């Protein structure tokens, strides 16, 4: 497959897999979401694409892979760390005082996940914006690579063709004809002068 075609295929396949993840909540079968979720992440790893933080945590259930839709297959709560007791995700920080946690309960697989209350401001970068960046850079490289050899080769080719044309027999004959024409012109001018004098 060509380089451009490969990149287009990557973008298209990733987009389709991402779209399919959102179609799954409408289906009644819950077992498929994990399969599609794993498939999506496998392709992300294969193509070495950095997903934004929004997609990594908080949007999909890490156990069964379904999209969190509050009041449909997920429920949201704010809890403190002391209430939970056993919090594996925040194990290192549990020694400190009670902390705020966002608890998302997945109603499909009946497992809850705790998210730390991060107060860092992250500039939102969306999943779709990443791939056109890759395409633009690649297209720029391709165009840059194409231009250089064209210029050098075309100039040498032109020079060679000019030399060949000068050396050919037809050109020599045409030169002789031109010289003859010039002589005729001179004679004609002389005749005009002679007419003026007379």
């Amino acid at each position, binding site marked *: 497959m060509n380089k451009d075609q490969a990149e287009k295929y990557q973008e298209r396949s990733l987009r389709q897999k991402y779209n399919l993840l959102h179609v799954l909540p409408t289906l009644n079968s819950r077992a498929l979401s994990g399969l599609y979720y794993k498939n999506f992440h496998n392709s992300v790893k294969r193509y070495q694409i950095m997903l934004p933080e929004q997609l990594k945590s908080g949007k999909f259930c890490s156990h069964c892979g379904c999209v969190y839709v509050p009041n449909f297959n997920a429920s949201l709560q704010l809890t403190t760390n002391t209430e939970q007791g056993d919090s594996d995700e925040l194990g290192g920080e549990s020694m400190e005082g009670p902390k705020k946690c966002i608890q998302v309960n997945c109603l499909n697989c009946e497992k809850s996940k705790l998210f730390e209350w991060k107060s860092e401001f992250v500039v939102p970068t969306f999943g*779709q914006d990443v791939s056109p960046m890759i395409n633009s850079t690649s297209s720029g490289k391709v165009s840059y690579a194409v231009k250089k050899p064209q210029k050098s080769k075309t100039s040498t080719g032109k020079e060679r063709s000019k030399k060949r044309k000068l050396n050919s027999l037809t050109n020599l004959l045409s030169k002789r004809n031109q010289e003859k024409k010039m002589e005729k012109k001179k004679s004609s001018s002389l005749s005009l002068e002679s007419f003026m004098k007379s």
Partner: protein
Amino acid sequence: MSGSLKSLDKKIAKRRQVYKPVLDNPFTNEAHMWPRVHDQPLIWQLLQSSIINKLIHIQSKENYPWELYTDFNEIVQYLSGAHGNSDPVCLFVCNKDPDVPLVLLQQIPLLCYMAPMTVKLVQLPKSAMDTFKSVSKYGMLLLRCDDRVDKKFVSQIQKNVDLLQFPWLNAIKYRPTSVKLLKTTVPIVSKKRQK
């Protein structure tokens, strides 16, 4: 080589920039998760003057003149339809301040869309959290649009804030009709010819 180069020159010369219409992606609209507020300073000014400045002076929550919720768990319970209310509701969120985490900000539009009542989700400008900290520590304010709330304020919000759009959630929100079979009897009609 010269032939191929000439053909390349011809191809490049013939190509020109053209824009074709392509269908947008209906499943993921991350760029439009938060509905647009057309006149942001007006809404922020109205909210400050009519709601927040009055709340600051009131000491305890029991004396609030309107039915409003500032705790996140209370907001979630209300939006899940636990109380059975169907009045329209306005939810003000400081989604551009660093104090509110991303995980919450992701789920709030979906939560508002899936709510049984109509929810107007209003995103507030940057540094609105400084004013909100005195009212609620989570940066959210759920206001039930009662008769007690100023009608001009509500109409301005209805006019300037767009609706929530999640086309991939339509199939989830509207449940299929539950059809059951009822056992009854029907008289048998005889098709005899009357002579």
